[in-house]
């Protein structure tokens, strides 16, 4: 038996004291993410097999992006208790890592497989249906009642102060780094000049894109990897997905953004002033700082030699891709706002 399987058996035994026998088999690492270690395994509880997933911090603290596993657990546990959120149930956690070797969460396994694999294997005729499914999932996330979220999840006072804070992050993150990054300062100034209309705040997944989506029971999509979840502007998820699909084709939102926005409005009741391709494009830039702040700090450690992780080195090129996407988006949005473009 592997060391991990033995640890998991002991871990589950402490949480299921009424079970007579617990064994763990078939521990298989899952590919796909850069930030956390994911392992699928089968727990046999009194002889009944159940497939579960262990989501753990890297033991060497070398992950390209650091996030708070305890906060993630509290949020997932609250959503699981409430029920209905589009996510696999979060079952157990090792909040300090003393049982499983690093901070970890155990979740239900989603049998249907990765949505990204399905999308990539589909021909063009299937993409509209996948875009609709993605839209439905985004609306499901937005519909979650934020009142059930734990105290660790910050509640912004209002939309304006929330947006102020997010824009300020672009300058603040850059100021904390030893390297000057003019693109961050450019984007910060541009975001300030081009604020969109106010939207009601709600639950935001924070890294919403096909790579973090699984096909659940009855074909319903569920979102995984909630480490960046927060209360914010619902357009953040639409914008992040738009940005990611530019580097991870095929595009689902970008193939017909007008239709996608119309469907999202129909599901959420939000107005066209709030949800349209231009506001979504603004949010393809704004929330990126949440993910990139952690990455940039880790990359600074790489520059100073305290981090030597290959993934961190590789992701310097992701920065350039982001810079390119942000810059082009600002130019396209400005062009689209010109009077001649509106009347065309």
């Amino acid at each position, binding site marked *: 038996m592997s060391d991990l399987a033995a640890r998991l058996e002991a871990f589950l035994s402490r949480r299921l004291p009424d079970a007579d026998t617990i064994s763990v088999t078939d521990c298989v*690492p899952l*590919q*796909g993410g*850069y930030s956390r270690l994911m392992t699928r395994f089968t727990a046999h509880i009194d002889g009944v097999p159940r497939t579960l997933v262990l989501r753990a911090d890297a033991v060497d603290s070398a992950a390209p992006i650091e996030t708070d596993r305890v906060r993630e657990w509290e949020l997932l546990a609250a959503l699981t208790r409430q029920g209905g959120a589009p996510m696999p149930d979060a079952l157990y956690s090792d909040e300090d890592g003393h049982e499983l070797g690093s901070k970890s969460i155990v979740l239900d396994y989603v049998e249907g497989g*990765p949505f*990204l*694999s399905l999308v990539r294997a589909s021909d063009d005729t299937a993409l509209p249906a996948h875009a609709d499914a993605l839209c439905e999932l985004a609306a499901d996330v937005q519909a979650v009642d934020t009142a059930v979220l734990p105290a660790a999840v910050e509640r912004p006072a209002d939309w304006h102060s929330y947006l102020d804070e997010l824009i300020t992050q672009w300058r603040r993150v*850059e100021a904390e780094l*030893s*390297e*000057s*990054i*003019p*693109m*961050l*300062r*450019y984007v910060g*100034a*541009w975001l300030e*000049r081009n604020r969109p209309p106010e939207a009601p705040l709600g639950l935001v997944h924070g890294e919403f894109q096909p*790579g973090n989506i699984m096909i659940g029971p009855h074909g319903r999509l569920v979102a995984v990897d909630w480490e960046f979840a927060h209360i914010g502007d619902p357009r953040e998820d639409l914008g992040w997905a738009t940005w990611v699909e530019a*580097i*991870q084709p095929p595009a689902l939102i970008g193939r017909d953004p007008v239709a996608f926005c119309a469907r999202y409005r129909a599901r959420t009741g939000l107005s066209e002033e709030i949800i349209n391709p231009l506001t979504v494009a603004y949010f393809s830039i704004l929330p990126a700082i949440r993910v990139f702040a952690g990455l940039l700090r880790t990359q600074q450690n790489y520059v100073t030699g305290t981090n030597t992780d*290959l*993934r961190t*080195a*590789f992701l*310097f*090129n*992701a920065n*350039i*891709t982001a*810079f*390119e996407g942000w*810059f082009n988006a600002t130019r396209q949005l400005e062009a689209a706002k010109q009077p001649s473009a509106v009347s065309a």
Partner: protein
Amino acid sequence: MIARPSSRQLLETVRTELRTTIKHAVADADALARLDMIDSILGSVIARSDDEVAWLREEIAAIERAGDAVLAHGADGAGQVAAALATLRANRATSYRLPDLHAEYNLAGEVLSRALEAGSRAGGRLRCTVEEVLEARLRREVLIRGEFSLAGRI
């Protein structure tokens, strides 16, 4: 020292070997993803290897011109651009070593950041002038990066 073959030639040989012989001998999905990451990194290092010093010098000069343009337009209200320019000019690289030049380039980056913010406030032609420097910097970064996709994504 052995200057030829160049670093670029040697790295291209390594990259080709990894892409052909080594990659085809590897079956493990995680190891293959890591090989793709190594290939991407090597591609960037190769792109930089012959021209890095010249590119850094060109960009520093362009940034200084943009900073001077902000001052000439009277758009440096609080003197932020002037201060960053003065710091840059007082701390030139004192050797041909890349780390020294990188330090100078970093100071130039702060000049560009402040010039972009000043240009954003001023608008008009000045904003275009400063943003053209950023755009040229981005074009070069994209050239160094080459093709990019998220290695290992299933």
